[in-house]
């Protein structure tokens, strides 16, 4: 391969070179954008769960409470037995399980959404320790409560107040801004898990609908190996039945409804189409180029270039063109990704995961987690796109070069 000749050819045949490079670079840019968007939607869908340090949440559906008085479970979150929790902890790929107890407490003058949380577990709502805006977080072994800041503001609850639940008084030791931390598991009042378990176990309305012991829970947060999440979710579905709410990044992604969010298959198919179109453009331009150069190739062969010399020269030209197209395509993709990263996406949170009763003010409203779409081009994707371009160049040049090297110089050099 003669590099000097190669560069001269690409430089002086600028129109041809620009057409081939532009065609392929647009295809590569589309590949980059499609995959970056798909990845961004996936990351966005992970956000609501990541906020509470989990990859999966589990709730079991049950019967509606017979009467909305006293302490009840929402029908979307009934008892998950301690033995079942132990079994989940033993599943392959599960790195940690956080337990919680979600209660609706109906009192004559007020209804409370109460969440019992583990104080030391990094998986689950204990992440709220970072959202304390007044007072302090819960201490070990103390029957005390945290109030949600907005709720406390609305009802004039202050640190130091005492709140009575099922006849027991809980001092409010702090206020937490739950909206800043998470959209899932937002409650009015947070208690230590043990307190919430005791309240649930002692509640007759709960026991009649869903027997509960002081070791059970009704809301689980699971941290898992990323590649095992679908497998674990399937096992949980089989354990808790089809009606259970098993929230995973994929299930949240499906709620988004965007084409990019729908499936890997869509992204793959669209990427393949983009690449196929790009390859066809590159192939057609290069085929046209080579057809125009049949006399030139005839001269090369007449003056002593072997078939291999000719093929290598054409492969070199094709590879360089496609490499430039690949780099340009990646650059275009990065620019487009930067533009798209200003886009906002709202992820709907399933109603089963919203703790507010639908019959209370705001309870029927769809909750969304809104965030900036985290579009970026991963280095591996950029490198893959450039390697793919070079491979396309090599194959296109090789294929066309092989055909054209069969040209008989005597046929193309014969004067009219």
């Amino acid at each position, binding site marked *: 391969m*003669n590099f*000097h*000749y190669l560069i*001269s*050819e690409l*430089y*002086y*045949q600028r129109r041809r070179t620009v057409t081939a490079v532009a065609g392929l670079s647009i295809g590569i840019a589309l590949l980059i954008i499609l995959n970056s968007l798909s990845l961004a939607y996936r990351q966005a869908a992970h956000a609501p769960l990541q906020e509470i340090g989990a990859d999966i949440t589990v709730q079991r559906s049950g019967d509606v409470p017979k009467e909305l008085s006293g302490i009840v479970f929402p029908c979307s979150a009934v008892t998950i037995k301690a033995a079942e929790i132990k079994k989940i902890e033993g599943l392959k790929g599960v790195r940690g399980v956080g337990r919680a107890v979600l209660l609706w407490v109906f009192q004559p003058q007020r209804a409370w959404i109460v969440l019992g949380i583990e104080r030391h577990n990094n998986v689950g709502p204990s992440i709220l320790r970072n959202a304390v805006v007044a007072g302090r977080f819960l201490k070990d072994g103390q029957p005390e409560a945290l109030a949600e800041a907005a709720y406390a503001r609305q009802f004039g609850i202050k640190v130091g107040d005492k709140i009575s639940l099922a006849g027991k008084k809980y001092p409010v030791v702090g206020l937490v801004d739950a909206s800043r931390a998470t959209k899932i598991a937002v409650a009015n009042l947070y208690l230590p898990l043990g307190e919430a378990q005791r309240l649930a176990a002692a509640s007759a309305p709960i026991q009649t609908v869903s027997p509960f012991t002081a070791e059970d829970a009704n809301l689980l947060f699971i941290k898992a190996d990323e590649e095992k999440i679908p497998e674990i979710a399937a096992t949980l579905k089989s354990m808790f039945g089809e009606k259970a709410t098993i929230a995973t990044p994929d299930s949240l992604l499906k709620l988004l409804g965007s084409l990019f969010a729908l499936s890997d298959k869509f992204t793959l198919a669209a990427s393949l189409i983009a690449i196929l179109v790009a390859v066809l453009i590159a192939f057609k331009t290069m085929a046209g180029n080579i057809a125009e150069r049949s*006399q*030139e190739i*005839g*001269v*090369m*062969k*007449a*003056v*002593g*270039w*072997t*078939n*291999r*010399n000719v093929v290598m020269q054409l492969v070199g030209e094709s590879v360089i063109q496609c490499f430039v197209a690949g780099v340009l395509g990646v650059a275009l993709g990065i620019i487009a990704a930067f533009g798209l990263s200003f886009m906002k996406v709202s992820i709907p949170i399933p109603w089963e995961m919203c703790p507010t009763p639908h019959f209370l003010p705001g309870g029927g409203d769809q909750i969304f987690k809104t965030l900036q779409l985290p579009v970026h081009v991963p280095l591996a994707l950029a490198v893959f796109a450039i390697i793919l371009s070079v491979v396309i160049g090599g194959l296109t040049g090789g294929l066309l070069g092989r055909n054209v090297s069969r040209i*008989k*110089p*005597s046929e193309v*050099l*014969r*004067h009219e």
Partner: protein
Amino acid sequence: MSKTILSGDDLSKKYGDLEVVKHVSVSVDEGEFICLVGKSGCGKTTLLSLLSGLERATTGQVRYNGKNITTSSEDELALFRRENLGFIFQSFHLIPTLTAWENVALPLFPIKMSSDERRERAIELLEKMELEHRMEHLPSALSGGEKQRVAIARALINHPKILFADEPTGNLDSATGEAIMDILNKLHQEQGVAILMVTHEAELAKTADRLIRMHDGEIVS
């Protein structure tokens, strides 16, 4: 007595049912200048292609220094042409994206040598062709005569034993054509390069050592 360097024995070429060259035998001696004349379509260019290994004969053999090259592969023939033959075409066939000196150096591109050496050899030949002022020009900036002189320099870059010239003055005006013929005559006389030239201009053939007339695919005299 001069030594025969190239010979074609009983050469025929058929395209389907059409026999373009019919059982022709011809030889070229070292340093000989042969003109192949005849009407258009009589098979002159095809015979030239058969003898130079650009085309394969349907029957017969081509020998170079006694070695049969008829059975050589495409790549072997390419290397044979690179080492022993030079070509000049009526339509010049210069590469449009290469400058004059790069066109001259084209046969050297596949050979491992430094770019400077290639350039030096090409410029030396361009100087002989009085084209040193044109060496960085693209073919589009050259006149017909200049293009043909670049093509002659390209044909000489590998010090060929035989030059094949197919109507080398066909696309040139008479004055430029004469100048090109002067160069070819000089090459033949001073450097002893054998030349096999196809032409249909009887006037040009007068300078040749030998004249071969073709008619309807056969040698008639």
